[in-house]
Every structure is written in structure tokens, then in C-alpha cells.
């Protein structure tokens, strides 16, 4: 009687194990979560600190594999390298053009880019020709056209933005 009871329990456990195994195998590949870099020139560091050694910069839309979450940083793997990225520079939403990208861009800290470029992957361009035409047809003064062009052309280096954030203890430097 006791032997039969054991056999039944054993059979039940086998069924449950097989079912759990099937569910597990289906879900396990998703454990390696993928995230995407939000904007251009996103710094990856060796440690979960913005002051640690820079490993390079990532392009907007670059896919990274999440290894672990540590405070305001996420440990990631990209292009065979492991490092840390400020967590609000990553998103779980894939870019509309598809993820991927070229891995780490090893840039010098002082490389110039537009103010816009410093936080985006978009190219630097002046006022749209359509907006220029609009200005001509609507009595917009040369001073106002120049003002829009000026705001579009304001430029910073990545190190200037980094220094501004470090001085204020904000962004990746926030405690």
C-alpha cells in the first residue's frame, strides 16, 4: 500500500517537473534582458561610478545585454566588453530603426558636437529650408531668424556637459 502511494507521488512529481521544465526553458532565454541606449555619446564606465575609468561611448539605439542593476547604474555587456551605464540613459524600448549598432566608440573626451548632438544621435543642421521660406513669407525679422539659428547651433563637448553634471552632483554623479 505504502509502495503504491510512493509510486503515485513519484508519478505526480515527474509530471510537475516536466511541466515546470517546459515553462522554464521557454522563459529562460528572456532572462538575458536587452536594453537600448537612449542618446548618442552615452558613457560606459569600468565601475558603477561616473568618476571611474571610461571604457568608451555608445551610440543612440545601441543594444546592450543587462547583467545586473546596481543603484543608479546598470552593469551591461556590449561588444564583448562589460561595464556600467547610468540607468536613465537606457530604455527597454527598442528604437524604431532596430537595435544593434557598432558597439563602443572610443572617442576622446573633448570631441566637439552640437548641444543637440551631445544628447542625441541626430545630425547637426540649421533651420529647415521650409522654415526659412516660412520666415520670408511672414515678415519674420532677420534678428528672429538669427535667434533660431543661434539656438540650433549652440554647441558643447561631451566633457563640458560631464563637468557641468559633476560640479552639480547630478546625472550619473548624483548620490
Amino acid at each position, binding site marked *: 500500500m505504502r509502495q503504491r502511494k510512493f509510486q503515485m507521488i513519484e508519478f505526480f512529481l515527474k509530471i510537475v517537473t516536466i511541466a*515546470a521544465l517546459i515553462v522554464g526553458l521557454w522563459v529562460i532565454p528572456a532572462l538575458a534582458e536587452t536594453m537600448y541606449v537612449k542618446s548618442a555619446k552615452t558613457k560606459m564606465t569600468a565601475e558603477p561610478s561616473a568618476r571611474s575609468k571610461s571604457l568608451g561611448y555608445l551610440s543612440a539605439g545601441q543594444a546592450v545585454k543587462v547583467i545586473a542593476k546596481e543603484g543608479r547604474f546598470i552593469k551591461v555587456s556590449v561588444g564583448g566588453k562589460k561595464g556600467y551605464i547610468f540607468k536613465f540613459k537606457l*530604455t527597454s*524600448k527598442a528604437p524604431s530603426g532596430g537595435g544593434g549598432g557598432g558597439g563602443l566608440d572610443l572617442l576622446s573626451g573633448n570631441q566637439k558636437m552640437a*548641444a543637440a548632438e551631445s544628447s*542625441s544621435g541626430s545630425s547637426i543642421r540649421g533651420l529647415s529650408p521650409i522654415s526659412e521660406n516660412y520666415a520670408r513669407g511672414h515678415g519674420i525679422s532677420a534678428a528672429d531668424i538669427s*535667434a533660431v539659428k543661434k*539656438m540650433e547651433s549652440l554647441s558643447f563637448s561631451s566633457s563640458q556637459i560631464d563637468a557641468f553634471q559633476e560640479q552639480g552632483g*547630478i546625472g550619473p554623479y548624483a548620490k
Partner: protein
Amino acid sequence: MKKLLIALMALGITLGLVTASWSINFGDILNETLKPPPQKKAAPAPKPKAKAAPAAKPKGGGGLIGILEGTGAIDKKTSGILRGATAVVQSMQPIGWEEERAIGGSLALEVFKNFGGQYKNDKLQRYIALVGLTVAGVSDRADIPYHFAILNSSAPNAFATPGGYIFVSSGLLKLVRNEAELAGILGHEIAHVAKRHALKTIERSKTLSGFSQLTTSILDSDPGVLNNIVKEMSTTLFTKGLDQNLEFEADKFGMDYAYRVGYNAGGLRDFMKVLGKTQKSRSVLLSTHPTPRARYGKLNAQAKRYRSASLAPVLSQRYLAETKGNL
């Protein structure tokens, strides 16, 4: 007995793995699955100079609905409802990036024209841009360029136009007391751009009814289309105001963006008290937005949800140092 132990161990290991997988966000997976096809980012190749690609408008008696109505299978009221639903399905495609930039740039010109022109102070403009870029960099739409300028106007105002053009008036900067407040204000404006509030409003408006898609070639070849869009958006942004729920949404994300950067999340909320004391007639910010009191209430409730947020810096000394002698 031995077999039983092996089975138990296998079950334990498997359950452990399944439990670990609970961290997966099934909501995100579902969202990705249900996501519409990717929008176009760049403008398409120039098309022949022609009017807009008009949406196929349902016409009386046409298509399956017409057949059903003709055979008496459905009555007029039902066919009307079905046609309405069809129109929604056939509504305009979201405005693309190049078109957004052209519209936003034209609106930016109108902002300078109507609100005092440029406040000329390079040092101050660079400071505002640095704060703004820091906030925009953690926003939900960090992959587009953002541009920042100061308006030469004593009235406290702030504007955002599509394409990432953000404006604050010198009058508003005089009321701001610290960088956390400024970050919250800029965050609110960045949220309008990130969430495409003005674009969504115009996409649903009568101005663009009949268009299935807006392209740069249409804007280029028919200036009347751009004129109408800019005119309607100017009325919305500078006179009527956006839907009040969109303003509350911009507050919500504006506060969150400032928090993500590491500022004291209460900056935008605290500025509402200051704004509430100013004269309404002088500010579009007051005449087109929900009352500072209503905004304060919602922001205050939100601020309580951030852990240790009140301990984060407001950077009043840096704000004062950067603005002193420049306003």
C-alpha cells in the same frame, strides 16, 4: 525512494529557474508585440508636386458598409457608427521627424516674433542649455536634438514647439529660485516634445483632415498647408492652450525627468507657489494652463512617492551664481 529524491531535486532546480524569470516584464513584451509598425524617421524621397495624399474618405453607398446598408442588413445609424470607426482606422499617420522639425522651426520663429525676441546673454543661454540638455538626456525621447533660448520678456513664460525648441522668458528666470525649479520647468516643456502633445493635437484637428500623411514635399510645395498648421498651433500654444490633461501629463513627466537627473523632485511643485502669486494677465503660462493651485496639488501628491527625493539637491547657489548680473 532514491527516484523520489531525484525527482524532488529536479523540481526544485526547475522551480528556482522559473522563479528567477519572474523579473521579466511581461507588460513590455506585450507592448512590443502590440507595437504598431515603425514610423518613418526621415522624410521620404520627394514626390511629384501634388496635393496631399488624401485619406480614403468613406462615401455613402460604397464598400461593404454601403452594401450592407443597401441590402437592409444594417440601418443608417449603424452604418454611420461603422463609417466613423473606419475613419478612425484610416486616420492620418503620425507626423515624421523632418516634418516635425519644419513645423517646429516655423513655430520657433513665431515665438521670437511674438514674445519679445531673443534675450541676448550668451553665458546665461549656455547655462540654461546645459540644464536643459541634462534633463532632456534622461527623457523618454532623448534621441532628438533639443535647443534652448531665453525670451526678452518680463512676463513669466515658457514654451515648447515640436522639434525640440524650448523657450523660457527672462521674467520667468527672475522668479525661479534654484536649479531644481528650473529643471522642473524645462522638464515640463521637454515632456510636451517627448510626448508629442502639440503634434498629436494637430494630427486630430480639422486642419489636417483629409490627409493620410504629411510630407516635406507637401509642406514645401503648398505653403498654405504649413501656414494653416502654424496658425492653428500658435492659437493652441499661445492663446487657447493644450488640453488640460496634457498639461498635467507634462507636469508629471517634467517632475520625473528632474528626479531622474538627481534634482530635488519638488522643484516644479515649489515653483507653482511662486507662479500663483504673479499677475495672470501678464503670462501665457497662467492663462493657458491649469491653475498653479491645481498643479501644485497633483505635483505634491506625486512628490510623496519619490523615496528620499526631498534630500536631493536644489542647487540654489549655482543658480544664483549663474544668473547674478545676467538678468
